[in-house]
């Protein structure tokens, strides 16, 4: 998808939109599975992880893209990692200061954003080769797509596994939560079914 589209605004919009649907990092590219499976047990955790990843991805892409002519290619990966790790640590401190409860729930998975292959992948594949504007559009699109996917999984798992959504109880006393859905296997089940669903949707669109 890198052929030159003449209109620059249309190209920017295109780069933004591709991350949300056609090249969705979770449902299409299946990247960053560690947070996708580990922290999506409630909708709030999913949203927090999605936003934290968005912060890191957008700022890293911004910096990598504006420094792309300065960074020698021999040390580019190391430099990307330094940049990414810095923003991850910033997010870690900010979450601990602003929302200690969410920070406690996400625990080690915040620090693990450093090794989320979605982020390094976007730097290497896109931000280091494109203008700041396009890199920003790409980073925003990809992270919105990632957050959307996390939220889909988190919503399903919280409703079934805890009978609530954003901590608001949905069903009466009679509902017996499916504990398995908030345990790790529930993550795999939900992801599997959602992948099935989104692939089916896409195939149907192709046929039409």
């Amino acid at each position: 998808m890198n052929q030159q589209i003449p209109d620059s605004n249309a190209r920017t919009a295109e780069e933004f939109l591709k991350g949300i649907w056609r090249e969705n990092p979770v449902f299409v590219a299946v990247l960053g599975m560690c947070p996708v499976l580990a922290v999506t047990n409630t909708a709030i955790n999913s949203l927090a992880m999605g936003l934290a990843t968005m912060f890191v991805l957008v700022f890293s892409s911004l910096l990598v893209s504006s420094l792309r002519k300065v960074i020698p290619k021999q040390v580019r990966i190391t430099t990307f990692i330094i940049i990414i790790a810095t923003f991850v640590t910033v997010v870690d401190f900010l979450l601990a200061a602003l929302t200690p409860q969410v920070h406690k729930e996400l625990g080690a998975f915040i620090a693990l954003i450093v090794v989320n292959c979605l982020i390094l992948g976007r730097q290497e594949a896109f931000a280091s080769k494109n203008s700041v504007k396009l890199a920003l559009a790409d980073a925003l699109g990809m992270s919105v797509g990632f957050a959307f996917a996390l939220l889909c999984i988190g919503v399903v798992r919280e409703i079934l596994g805890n009978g609530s959504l954003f901590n608001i109880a949905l069903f009466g006393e009679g509902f017996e939560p499916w504990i398995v859905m908030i345990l790790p296997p529930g993550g795999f089940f939900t992801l599997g079914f959602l992948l099935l669903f989104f692939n089916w949707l896409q195939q149907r669109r192709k046929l039409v």
Partner: protein
Amino acid sequence: MDTSTSTSLPPQSDPSSFRLILTLGIAGFFSGLLLVGVYLSTLPAIQKHRAESLRKAIFQVLPGCTEYKIMELREGQLLEAQITEQGSSEGEVLPRVYAGYNAAGEFIGFAIQGEEPGFQDNIGAIFGYEPGEKVIIGFEVLESKETPGLGDKIMKDENWLANFKALKVEPGLEVVKEGQGQKPNQVESITGATISSKAIVRLLEKELAEWRPVLEEYNRRPKVEGRK
């Protein structure tokens, strides 16, 4: 950075090692600068949250407690600490407990903090101990990564927490199955969370072994000193 060198050189020539080191050095420098700035600006808020959750937990494990003093173990003596919850500036951290008092200024018990490996990771907990009756009067988990739905019942299961409302520590704690506790020194473990339950009891035993002699000694002293 010297963008002129990279553009004037033909693209296939390698940049010098010096330039590579310089790039990483500069990246590291700015990264460090940013981190120190963010660390310093978020530290007060983070410490406030930590102290706040500890405070809440102390009031939770010492029923009726409205005020507490930090007590430090200095050279075998239990003394009121000179420092705040933020930690001492001298860097030396002495073992500490929290002595709780009710609204009338009467002594309720000590809150003791401890850590013990659970099923996944260290479990951090705090409990209230009354040295006169030799009884545990409250318990709360501060930090745990136990399995959601099973092990994490140690945090909120009501039957389990009821164990620690009046738990005799003599002649020693005993773990029994759920529904079989009869004696006041028995802890009914949680079905499906035996390992987590046993870890908690180990934590209590470890901390009690360390603190009981000191606290009971302190409790036997003339009462004038213990009060404010």
